[in-house]
């Protein structure tokens, strides 16, 4: 028995050595290529922590533009950077990412980094089931495997083992439907759940563009925010992390198309959204965070997409948001 354990121990040790040597080999061969292929945001982030005074975390609203109607194609963060001569603002953004990812990245800002401020987009829609269980989530989580502080080979191995939340489209839809069906809204029937609200007659039968858009507004904006919401927990952690790291944290509440929402769905939706928004602002201002409230900043004409309620803006809209951020930094300094 003693011989057996000796034999096993030697081999376990050998395996450990193989892994350590493999890690060195991997770091100097295909690691960079793997990051570029599977986790390009990590490269952006590394560049930002090395050079920026202000890291600007966002998803697609930062850079989305109209190549037909916009004269100025710059992202919001670039506009801010151009207007603040004494601060270097670098964005870390990609489509559909959210507070969970921002939180993981903020954790990785090293002490030696020149970064002193963190701007984070507070996107109202990201708190809803439509975003949390979207089919883009698996790909976002897959990228995040490389954001963790582990040996390179371990991160790569975990990627191969698919050690991230893999949410199939079907499973995501099931979770969404479940929430829309069961979550109680603060209204009487038929506006007591998302499902019932969507069934309510409006804008002709199912399939008309207005009806489809109105239902999208309900599905993406009608929810009750509370401390149990996973995204709230992520934002809370961001606040804690920034306090620990002594970083100035600015939440930028993005504009929503309230005009269109009211026209298509009605004032109840605006009432619910405003209640949630106020709750958010109070919560984070109460925690000492600067919240730039742009929720109702833009009119319907500033919004790019006409068939889905997104936070993509024409250049004037992006400029207005950028200006609100610039104002904050100018006042601070």
């Amino acid at each position: 028995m003693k011989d057996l354990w000796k034999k096993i121990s030697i081999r376990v040790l050998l395996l450990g050595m193989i892994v350590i040597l493999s890690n060195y080999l991997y770091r100097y061969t295909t690691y960079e290529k793997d990051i570029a292929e599977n986790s390009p945001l990590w490269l952006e982030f590394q560049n930002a922590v090395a050079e920026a005074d202000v890291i600007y975390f966002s998803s697609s609203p930062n850079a989305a533009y109209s190549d037909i109607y916009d004269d100025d194609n710059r992202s919001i963060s670039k506009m801010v950077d151009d207007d603040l001569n004494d601060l270097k603002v670098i964005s870390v953004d990609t489509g559909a990412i959210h507070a969970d990812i921002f939180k993981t990245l903020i954790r990785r800002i090293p002490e030696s980094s020149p970064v002193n401020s963190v701007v984070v987009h507070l996107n109202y829609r990201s708190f809803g089931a439509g975003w949390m269980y979207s089919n883009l989530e698996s790909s976002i989580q897959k990228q995040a495997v490389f954001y963790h502080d582990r040996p390179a080979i371990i991160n790569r191995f975990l990627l191969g083992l698919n050690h991230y939340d893999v949410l199939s489209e079907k499973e995501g839809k099931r979770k969404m439907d479940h929430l829309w069906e069961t979550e109680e809204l603060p209204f009487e029937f038929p506006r007591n759940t998302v499902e019932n609200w969507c069934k309510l007659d409006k804008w002709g039968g199912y399939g008309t563009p207005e009806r489809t858009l109105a239902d999208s507004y309900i599905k993406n904006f009608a929810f009750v925010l509370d401390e149990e919401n996973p995204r709230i927990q992520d934002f809370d952690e961001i606040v804690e992390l920034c306090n620990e790291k002594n970083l100035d944290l600015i939440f930028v509440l993005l504009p929503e198309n309230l005009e269109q929402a009211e026209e298509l769905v009605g004032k109840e939706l605006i009432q619910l959204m405003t209640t949630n928004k106020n709750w958010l602002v109070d919560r984070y201002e109460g925690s000492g965070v600067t919240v730039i409230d742009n929720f109702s900043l833009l009119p319907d004409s500033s919004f790019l997409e006409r068939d889905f309620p997104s936070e993509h803006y024409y250049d004037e809209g992006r400029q207005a948001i950028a200006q609100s951020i610039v104002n904050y930094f100018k006042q601070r300094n």
Partner: protein
Amino acid sequence: MLFDSLQFLIFLPLVIILYYLLPHKMRWVLLLVASYIFYGTWKAEFLILIAYSTIVDYVAARQMDRTELRIRKRIWLTISLLSNFGVLFIFKYFNFFIGRQDFFIDFVGQHPKVEWFTGVLEYGIPVGISFYTFQTVGYTIDVYRGKVKPEKNLGKFALFVSYFPQLVAGPIERYGHLRPQIFAHHKLNYESLSNGFRLILYGLFIKMVIADNIAPLIDPVYANPLAFDQATNILSVLLFSLQIYADFHGYSLIAIGVAKMMGVNLMDNFKAPYFAHSIQNFWSRWHISLSTWFRDYLYIPLGGNRMSYFRWVLNILIVFIVSGVWHGANFTFIIWGAIHGLLYLSEQIFTRHRKTEITGVRKAFGITKTFLLVNVAWLFFRSDTLSKAYLSLAKIIGFTPSAKTYQNIGHMENATSNQKVENVLNSSVTAQTELVFDPILIIPLLAFIVLELIIQKNRFDQVINKTSFTVRWLIYSCLIYFVMTMSGAEFYQFIYFQF
């Protein structure tokens, strides 16, 4: 829990350590709990189905053993078969035979049970249902035939049904082979551990590095064959044959390796199938546990080859088509089975009574011919619909089918597939048109091909056992490096889990 997941890589050592620490009497309880945890991590609700199969077959087998009357034995066998295949039918074939995905929609709201039922069906096909159903059915038939005595302990029988190394994708074991091994007293043994480790490592290599890197490469081609040229379509068929072999053989090796670590020898499922010199030979090397199951529990009861020539032909076709249906509720699998059946028969017409060994050039010709024919059949197996299989075939042969032909295929598939066909045609305009391949992956691919050529009909653990310590560890190092740094990054379940 998937074999290629972190959870399993933590779960397995824990189970093995506990297995050898516990007294022999308690081990089966550990394995039973571990097996239910292993399966429950997918969808705990589906444990009810396994428990149901277990109880029904336990009771049926015990009742068959208690009675001497043939008719009563038959009744209990029928109950068992109806129960097992009934569950299989509901969860796997219901939509296919009804011909509509949304059959129950019309009834929703009329009765709460309808909504409950559609909710359950919504979860999809329970992982491995065809595998454990066949294993338990095999057991009841064996008891009926008097080949084995029924298990008296319900818990122990539950372990036979749910034994985690082979629960979700086989090998489909026989009670007479597995039962004595699971409950035997195994002492901690270095050979078992090292052979198990070797099989798991090689299995992970071929699944995670070979199969999972091929899958995303060829998926776009099968999604839209018209968007790719002839050469790419041909290459995709060849690559799929490697993918499915690496995927399923990889899974089987891990299963065998895991069981081996606990002293159990599961049956081999593959023996170099692409070196088969005939279709008959192929089926003695590919998914052996399933082909022998069909032989023993379907082909022979149908009369085998001891019938008239016409009946024998019919028996062969039935077995192959049922084998196709076993794989899934889709016409593509039926055609796949039928192709194999017809190829088998066409070979048998000439060689049925010839028993001479084939060697030399004839063997080489046979291997090439068999490989190509198997690939043509794989094309149907892999395609989502018959129309896509047809489009792939058309692209490979080099002709453009007419719109009328698409429509006819559409009608064959189901009521809504005309739309599907049109979608395929429309999407071909904008799709990608070449394979995107990372050249670095040629290294593990070549390593895989060389190793397979060396291994041939043996098994990786047996071959590596004959090499020196240095060579062995050099091979381990390469495999570990490949697995840890070159595994496919996308999530792909084992292909056979869906069956």
